[in-house]
């Protein structure tokens, strides 16, 4: 707990410096670019839009940073909020794309390169990703924070501004949702 408080204070100090110091903002960027990119990537489904939206997230963050007030939440919560809003706008403006670049996925965790296994694994992953992208925004966010960023329920709760119990409950409902949708496919 004390470590968390110290980490938040250190981050708060960095955020304050970043308001007036370009290299300090660069440091903040380096801390969070991979996480934001992953979040946007899984929400959009392709690298090109993920890069474009990630850039827009940090541009917006830089412009709005002077107005940022530390409310005791991690700075990442604010960044995820910006990313969430930009992705929501992207979904509204663009037609839903289901481009799933599976190259990054299939190289992980496969113990054989037998074509039929690879094809089946790809198909399973495609199905799951399609179902995930049909989930409500907050459930998608929860899954990405939990499995991609490997965050605990408490950390996810801090980002999504919910209690740990609420996150557990949301996760349970999300799994139920997934199971039911996958059974339909």
């Amino acid at each position, binding site marked *: 707990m004390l470590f968390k408080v110290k980490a938040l204070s250190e981050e708060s100090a960095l955020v304050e410096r970043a308001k*007036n110091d*370009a*290299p300090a*903002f*660069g440091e903040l*960027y*380096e801390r969070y*670019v*991979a996480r934001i*990119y*992953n979040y946007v*990537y*899984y929400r959009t489904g392709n*690298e090109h839009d*993920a*890069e474009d939206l*990630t*850039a827009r997230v*940090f*541009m917006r963050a*830089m*412009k709005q940073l002077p107005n940022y007030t530390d409310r005791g939440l991690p700075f990442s919560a604010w960044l995820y909020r910006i990313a969430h809003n930009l992705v929501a706008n992207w979904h509204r403006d663009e037609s839903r794309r289901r481009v799933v670049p599976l190259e*990054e*996925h299939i190289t*992980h*965790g496969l113990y054989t390169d037998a074509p039929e296994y690879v094809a089946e694994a790809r198909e*399973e*992953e495609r199905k*799951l*990703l399609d179902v*995930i992208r049909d989930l409500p925004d907050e459930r998608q966010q929860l*899954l*990405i924070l*939990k*499995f*991609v*960023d490997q965050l605990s329920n408490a950390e996810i709760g801090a980002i999504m501004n919910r209690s740990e119990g609420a996150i557990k409950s949301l996760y*349970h409902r999300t*799994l*139920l949702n*997934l*199971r*039911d949708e996958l059974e339909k496919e």
Partner: protein
Amino acid sequence: MKDLKPDEVINLTDRLQTTLKQVKPRAEFVADLKRKLIREARTGQHAQNEWKQTLTWIAIGAGSLIYIATLLFVSAKSAWWILSAVGALLGWKKAQQPQKQTARVK
């Protein structure tokens, strides 16, 4: 809606862990964006500093004008009082002089 069985939870969690893996952004993209952001941040800070400087100079100028105007006003008012007092004094002295002359003649 039937509740999840333990093996369903395990199965779904495994599939999610296999599918939702960390994707590394392109190193070139990360580096380019960082350069762009720092450049924009510096331009923004420079413009902000210039704007602050301009406002500061306007404030100093306005303050100086008000100060000078106040001084002049006070000085003018003081001068007027001084002149009035002197004038009043002179007028009293003049009024006094004919009475003295009349007294001498007598």
